[in-house]
């Protein structure tokens, strides 16, 4: 089963985007600011009005009987979401079970417990959201998505405010989810994370797909230099890659001069 787009257009933000994400794999969407990453992710989450083109789930265009059925299939974590009311972590995570509100209570309770322990939140479960640090809050919000146990996990910069240890733990958790047969699609800013942990990388620039494939071929030195406008070099072995960034390329120097 795959989640794919066919010649997708969203105004000027996405142009003719055709990508395919597979279940059991981690797909990373990368690109500079304003490239259309979040727009593409919300298209995959069926939350975005499109100008033309289709989003396919499996062999057929994506269509659900109800918003609730969609919610059971597609779990979506927006970028830097805010929480309106000062609920406790446990209550926040339980919101993830709203699409399953008619499931047996025991099943819901277990899903909430699993999500809480997966995100290492046992000790924070009664703490109100206002007294969490940025990273703790990000973990609680991620646990909310995990609690839904959807077929697809779509997360917009899930690592943005996590410390090193929790970021690594979350990536392991995503891998585990993929191994359980879920599809995982992440918008990632950190190219090294995408290089080391993703099975497939989609590089977007100005709304168009620049590269799409395994990280080794999608995030080559050339593409990184061209899209992010900086001279970069991969160090280390596969799986432990680090990106070394040299002095700015002539292209961005020109940009600087114009600004001056």
């Amino acid at each position, binding site marked *: 089963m795959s989640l794919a787009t066919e010649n997708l257009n969203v105004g000027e933000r996405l142009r003719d985007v055709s990508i395919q994400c597979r279940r059991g794999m981690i797909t990373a969407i990368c690109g500079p600011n304003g490239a259309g990453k979040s727009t593409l992710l919300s298209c995959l989450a069926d939350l975005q009005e499109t100008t033309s083109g289709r989003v396919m789930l499996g062999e057929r265009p994506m269509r659900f009987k109800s918003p609730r059925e969609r*919610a059971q299939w597609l779990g979506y974590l927006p970028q830097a979401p805010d929480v309106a009311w000062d609920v406790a972590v446990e209550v926040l995570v339980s919101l993830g079970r709203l699409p399953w509100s008619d499931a047996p209570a025991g099943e819901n309770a277990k899903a909430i417990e699993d999500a809480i322990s997966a995100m290492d939140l046992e000790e924070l479960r009664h703490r109100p959201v206002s007294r969490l640090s940025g990273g703790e809050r990000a973990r609680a919000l991620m646990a909310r998505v995990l609690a839904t146990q959807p077929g697809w996990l779509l997360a917009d910069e899930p690592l943005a405010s996590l410390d090193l240890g929790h970021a690594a733990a979350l990536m392991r958790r995503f891998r585990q989810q993929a191994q359980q047969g879920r599809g995982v699609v992440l918008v990632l800013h950190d190219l090294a994370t995408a290089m080391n942990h993703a099975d497939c990388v989609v590089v977007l620039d100005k709304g168009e797909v620049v590269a799409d494939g395994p990280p080794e071929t999608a995030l080559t030195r050339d593409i990184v230099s061209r899209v992010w406008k900086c001279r970069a070099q991969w160090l280390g072995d596969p799986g432990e890659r680090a990106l070394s960034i040299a002095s700015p390329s002539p292209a961005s120097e020109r940009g600087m001069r114009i600004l001056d």
Partner: protein
Amino acid sequence: MTQLRLNLLLLLGLALVVPLSLLAGRVWINPLAPETHNASLILMHLRLPRAVLAVTLGAGLGLTGAAMQAYLRNPLADPGLFGIAPGAALGAVLSFWTGYAASPWLLPVFALLGASGAMLLLALIAGRGGGVALFTLAGLMVSSLAGALMSLAISLSPSPFAMTEIVTWMMGALADRSWREVWIAVPCTLAGAAAIYAARRSLDALTLGEAAARSLGVDPLTLQLQIIAGVGLIIGSGVAVAGIIGFVGLMVPHLVRPLTDRRPSSLLVPSAIAGALLLLVADCLCRILPLASGELRLGIALSLLGTPFFLVLLLRMRKGLSW
């Protein structure tokens, strides 16, 4: 405190206050020695409908306040803000114009028509995208339009007598209400409460913002229609029978929120009961306050109480205390 215990406690309070409210007033009735002249008449035709109305309207205001705050994700939202109350008031003012004396049903029916007009306009403007921002703007627009039309109607009022009557009526009150008003308010409030109750899970999901709520299966359009219908029926019928009563919808959810787990759906029932309690007590106080000329208007009393509360709220918010 658990949800159930809080609700039971509030219900217990209500069960204590309702009988007391029946005894209190200009004429005090002693239940042990009921020799007061016309006691049963006063109870059945004055006190009881008034108590039922206070409970109904208070519950409606508390419930819609909690729902509006949840829907707009804003602790300062008030059910009166969104054009429905001004719409109903406009209808009522127009009924004064056409001759209030014609039929006692004329005013409430006109007010309900005004509220429906405001609801329809809200749904037409905001209902296309279902977004909260557009809804807020549409509400403010409907509100100021109805306000302006109301001022126009008052300024063109045919006689100064009608003008006084309009102005007094607008300061909400529950004095001299009868069973007729009860039959208007109760069914509308129940229907509105059903619409809001149906939206409770969607309101919970909105805690996480609009995008996340949609991803959790909330249909924004359905939710918006539920809110418009719920708030419209409750506030529209409330204004139709008692004029404009402010601040209960703003205050009550705030008083109740710290006692719950702060989930919007946990707030609905206790806000309704606490609203009923507050309005009933306030109405009794208005009734027994020794004032030279008649009694203190309920709407005025609550606004006097509400303004300092609002100020404290704003100050607390600036200090960054949580909700």
